[in-house]
């Protein structure tokens, strides 16, 4: 990736924006006029409310608002970054240049960020200086260095998040109108985030504000990565001919379902073999597991993170918190309940896999995280209550694991990790399609792999685990804890 190409594209776009009075005028107003209005409003509010303390709590929020509104202009420039050029017929000449897709994407992203963020920082500076001059008391008591830093980071993270999302929309739509309509998918969550931030600022929850900063930065980074992964000059031009062809989608999905080939293998090069259970278990599943090494590692890390965070989980989740109280309870064997449990776990995994598409796989990671977290919480609670890890007994964490976890957990927990890995792969499908695949093909491929493994591996494993839980675990529990 060429930095000079990124710089060239960004500089041209920024110059273009800065010579467009239709963008400059509102930015000027928001930069220089809005802060003055807000300061004037603060003075009026103090006189009206008569409670200087309440108004002081609002000052960081006012700063957030002053900074956010000009920054929100980045959405407009980013939304039209690709689709606007496409409508003006200038895109093809740019796509014909010997620069990488990433350089093109990042050039557009950076250029969409610079003018609004500069305007935002300038507006915040104007607000801060004006407040210092006109209301020195409000400035001194309302704006601490920490708040300023948090507000600055929140605005930057939100701007990157909005721009990254908008550039993705812009490169995936065929008209500015369509891009504007889809922008609601960015505007609505952003509006919700701003409201949440307002509550946190007014409530002076600095810990949660810092957490918000971290979360927004992670989301911004993921969206930027997704944009880079999905941006493809080929697909931009192909969209001229794009039609939603359900028959072809179904055909491709069926192809992926019937036969395993590594991700990125073009559908037209598949052999067209029909599905074979024998081939699936003997050749395709081992090959798939090899291909899924990274998602499996991520799922395993989520499980370990759950185990590490487990001792703290009970404080946040009532159900987990109540688990140690149920240790010693030995249920009666119930085969039907075992089947229902197995089916319910399989269904849960399926739902998280579907949600993985929209959450970059995060929902899938929750399954191993909470499964291992729950076990970890109970063992930690038992150990804290004096239970020994080295001898058996009703309060022993070791006995809890041997009785409540191990018999069916040996089947269920690996299944949860495998299911999570499949979900992570689905979530990652939108971010980084392998060479040879479009984003759509990548999503269909990962969904097909999930469907195959779910039907022929996970469902049997969960059902078996459910039966083991009812037929074996209950007996071991009765032996360990008494009927």
């Amino acid at each position, binding site marked *: 990736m060429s930095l000079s190409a990124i710089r060239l594209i960004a500089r041209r776009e920024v110059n273009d924006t800065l010579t*467009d009075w239709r963008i400059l005028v509102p930015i000027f107003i928001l930069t220089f006029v809005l802060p003055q209005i807000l300061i004037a409003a603060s003075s009026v509010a103090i006189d009206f409310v008569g409670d200087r303390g309440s108004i002081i709590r609002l000052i960081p929020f006012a700063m957030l608002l002053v900074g956010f509104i000009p920054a929100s202009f980045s959405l407009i420039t980013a939304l039209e970054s690709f689709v606007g050029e496409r409508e003006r017929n200038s895109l093809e000449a740019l796509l014909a240049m010997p620069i990488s897709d990433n350089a093109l994407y990042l050039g557009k992203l950076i250029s969409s960020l610079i003018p609004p963020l500069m305007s935002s920082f300038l507006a915040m500076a104007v607000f801060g200086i004006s407040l210092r001059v006109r209301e020195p008391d409000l400035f001194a008591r309302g704006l601490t260095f920490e708040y300023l830093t948090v507000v600055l980071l929140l605005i930057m993270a939100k701007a990157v998040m909005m721009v990254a999302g908008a550039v993705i929309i812009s490169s995936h739509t065929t008209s500015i109108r369509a891009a504007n309509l889809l922008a609601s998918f960015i505007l609505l969550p952003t509006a919700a985030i701003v409201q949440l931030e307002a509550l946190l600022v007014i409530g002076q929850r600095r810990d949660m504000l810092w957490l918000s900063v971290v979360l927004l930065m992670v989301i911004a980074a993921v969206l930027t990565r997704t944009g880079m992964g999905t941006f493809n000059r080929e697909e931009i031009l192909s969209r001229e001919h794009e039609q939603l062809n359900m028959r072809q989608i179904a055909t491709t999905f069926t192809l992926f379902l019937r036969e395993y080939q590594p991700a990125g293998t073009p559908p037209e090069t598949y052999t067209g073999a029909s599905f074979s259970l024998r081939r699936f278990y003997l050749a395709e599943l081992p090959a798939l597991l090899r291909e899924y090494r990274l998602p499996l590692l991520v799922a395993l890390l989520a499980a370990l993170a759950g185990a590490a965070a487990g001792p703290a989980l009970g404080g946040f989740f009532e159900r987990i918190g109540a688990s140690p109280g149920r240790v010693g309870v030995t249920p009666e064997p119930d085969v039907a309940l075992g089947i229902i449990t197995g089916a319910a776990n399989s269904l849960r995994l399926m739902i998280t896999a579907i949600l993985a598409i929209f959450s970059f796989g995060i929902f899938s990671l929750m399954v191993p995280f909470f499964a291992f977290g729950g076990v970890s919480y109970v063992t930690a609670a038992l150990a804290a209550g004096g239970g020994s890890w080295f001898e058996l007994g009703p309060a022993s964490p070791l006995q809890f694991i041997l009785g409540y976890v191990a018999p069916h957990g040996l089947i269920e927990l690996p299944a949860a990790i495998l299911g999570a890995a499949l979900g992570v792969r689905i979530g990652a499908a939108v971010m980084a399609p392998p060479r040879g695949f479009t984003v759509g093909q990548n999503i269909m491929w990962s969904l097909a792999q999930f469907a195959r493994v779910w039907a022929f591996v996970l469902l049997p494993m969960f059902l078996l685990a459910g039966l083991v839980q009812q037929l074996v675990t209950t007996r071991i529990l009765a032996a360990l804890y008494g009927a």
Partner: protein
Amino acid sequence: MIEADNLHKTFGAFHAVRGVTLTVAPGEVVALLGPNGAGKTTTVRMLGAILKPTRGRARVAGYDVVEQARDVRRVVGLLTEFPGLYLRMRPQEYLHFFGALQGMDAVASAHRAQRLLQQFGLWDARDKRLDSFSKGMKQKIALIRALIHDPPVLYLDEPTTAMDPHSARVVRDAMMELRAARRTILLTTHNLTEAEELADRIVIIRGGALVAEGTIEQLTHRFLGMPLWELRLAQPATAAAPALDGLVRIEAIEGVSLRFRTNDARHVNPQIVSRLAAAGIPVVALSEMPRRLEDVYLEIIAGHTGRFGEGTIPDSGPAERATVTGDMRRNGGNGDIGLAPLPVTASHDEGEALP
């Protein structure tokens, strides 16, 4: 310089290009013709490494369009169908931007931009913003953009669209110069006169498939037959037919006009004149009927395969091939050649040697 082998491009269920095989030699100008939606732009985009072929391979200046896409883009200058300029820029900064993206240093791109702006008569407008330019001026700037890095291969999509005759002449002269400088040019146009003037070879695409290719002479011969001559007499032409019996086969008789074909006008025409003089039929005029590329194009687009069938023109050398692909016949060709622009009243049986 350009070698495309069985290029296919599908967009979902839509098959935009079907097995285009094409070779363009260095310094050759090839006109890519075809109706709207025929697959010309998609073919050019694949050859410009902007779109990846679904199937098939192509190399441009030795670089593979898939594996070495960036190298291909470096050696290609692309004039897109629409100028699509950044209208708030001025010509020099616009050209400098694209020169820099092509890896040119500022001094080189400035010199080159100045030279090209002067050549195309835009130097005096260098300080104006592009949004104040006329359509023709914008088109020239787009052409200069394609030329800024002095590429060995040029893809020009409708280069003279929207230009006044003088500007179009300037652009055509520039293309002549490029050809003289051994630049390879793939010209996409609907302006058949321009194609006739500039192209060494014509390639016609229809329904995504290459349906005919060859020099203009080859294609004309193939689709319009031998040169057609018109004889204008001082009296009804029916009286002249017996005098010409055995010399030429008459194509049409209409009033005082008589049309016939011959490949050997140098010998046949004087005989005609002398025979008619001997028969007491005064000749007013004898002239060759114009055979335009447009007529050839319309023949091909209508689905006709040419009068000599697939293969070479009988009187052409081995290097001069005019081919019609089998795909054309599948697309509705019936092997019939009609001389659509002319009222044919006499039957004709083409393909035979004339007396």
